């Protein structure tokens, strides 16, 4: 990257981090949601860890997907509402880079905490400690994918009133492969098998989405923001 782009990324990231620290209570809400959703399953199914252990990978992954969906509300909406995004589209700077920087920062605040929290929540559902590396690894790659796909959806629906459900409808089908590979990786690890296959597939998806996604995001954002 040219020095100009690096500086741009740094400025965007610093701004978002500063804003997030000021509103840290909003930042942790998706994380709390994640924990609450995983709590629903023992209540709905059974307190027996043996039973829960079998569905634990799926439960943790689905809860992470839903939490990341909720977190998307704070990705673009504030900037679009106060007019900052319009300025960005008119600024002459590469919008795709700026949006990627925003999404990456958002991942640090919304995705990474899920990755850290997951082993704790997993243990509560009966996951053994041996699974933690694969759990964290698959979620790290997975939440990166979810952030990009979610970012595209968010950019498309940011101008739509009450667009959160529409966002979910658009983004969840696209995220299904990520769920399949991620949950499967953890499941393999739980049975003591090598999870390299699905993890590699997840890594490939992450690479694909991170490299192409920002262009779709920028195109979508321009449409949403133009008046």
């Amino acid at each position, binding site marked *: 990257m040219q020095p100009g782009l690096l500086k741009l990324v740094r400025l965007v990231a610093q701004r978002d981090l500063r804003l997030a620290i000021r509103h840290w209570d909003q930042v942790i809400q998706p994380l709390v949601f994640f924990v609450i959703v995983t709590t629903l399953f023992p209540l709905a199914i059974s307190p027996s860890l043996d039973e829960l252990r079998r569905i634990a990978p799926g439960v943790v992954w689905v809860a992470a997907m839903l939490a990341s969906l909720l977190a998307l509300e704070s990705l673009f909406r504030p900037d679009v509402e106060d007019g900052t995004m319009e300025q960005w589209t008119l600024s002459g700077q590469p919008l795709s880079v700026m949006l990627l920087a925003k999404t990456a920062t958002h991942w640090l605040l919304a995705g990474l905490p899920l990755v850290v929290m997951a082993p704790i929540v997993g243990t509560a559902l009966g996951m053994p400690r041996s699974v933690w590396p694969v759990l964290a690894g698959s979620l790290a790659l997975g939440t990166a994918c979810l952030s990009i796909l979610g970012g595209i959806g968010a950019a498309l*629906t940011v101008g*739509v009133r009450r667009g959160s459900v529409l966002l979910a409808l*658009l983004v969840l089908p*696209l995220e*299904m*492969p990520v769920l399949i590979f991620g949950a499967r990786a953890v499941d393999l690890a739980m049975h003591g098998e090598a999870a390299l296959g699905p993890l590699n*597939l997840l890594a490939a998806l992450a690479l694909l989405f991170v490299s192409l996604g920002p262009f779709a995001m920028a195109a979508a954002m321009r449409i949403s923001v133009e008046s």
Partner: protein
Amino acid sequence: MTSEARITGEEPKSGTRWLWFFKLASPPHAYRLAGLLRPWFFWPAVALMLIAAYGGLLLAPPDYQQKDAFRIIYVHAPAAALSLMVYVVMAVAAAIGVIWRIKLAHAVAASCAPIGTWFTVLTLVTGSIYGKPMWGTWWEWDPRLTSELIMLFLYLGYMALRASFDDTQRADRASAILAIVGVVNVPIVKYSVVWWNSLHQGPSISKLDAPSIDSSMLWPLLIMMLAFVLYFVAVLCNRVRSEILKRERNTAWLTERLARS
């Protein structure tokens, strides 16, 4: 501008080699052409469907395992093929619309969506009915049915996004991005679903395929697929004409043409 372009408002693009393409893309020409071509798609489609139905229901011998139930494949498989094909056509049209800014392409994309949705629903319902005698339940998470279900979600999402914009131009462009992202994801989804399914049972052939397909069973299937494609184009012609009428309502060419009739 040439005199033609003055009427249609489209700028002639550089080079006369592609002129026929952009002339085709002008709404008045497209409107006329769609009307003229339609019968040439519709009637052959109907004829081929009758031939294929005759071949599939009467000529093809009953399958060893599935007996006569396998005949459902003659409607289920073409519907599935079309549900995918229509999505690709929709995405390609949408991409042409955003890249070359051709309004007609957006009209085509918008027209494809409801047709594709119905083919997807038909695939799911016939698949479910086919499944009941074959494996005893009304639903199974087999690769074809699962990926068809996800296709249905993609179609519904596309139409929902379109509907959420009041301005047609913005609806066109936003849904185009969604369609392009969707079409890139379709192979990923299909691969992941087949992979997911194969982990729990041996080879990942959909349970809904007639096990051994020999030539007397195959030709009605291919004819039916062709028939469905032609039928889709025929229906699309009418829908595109409707879209053109709606979108071009304030233009000179349309007002002139309709006031005269």
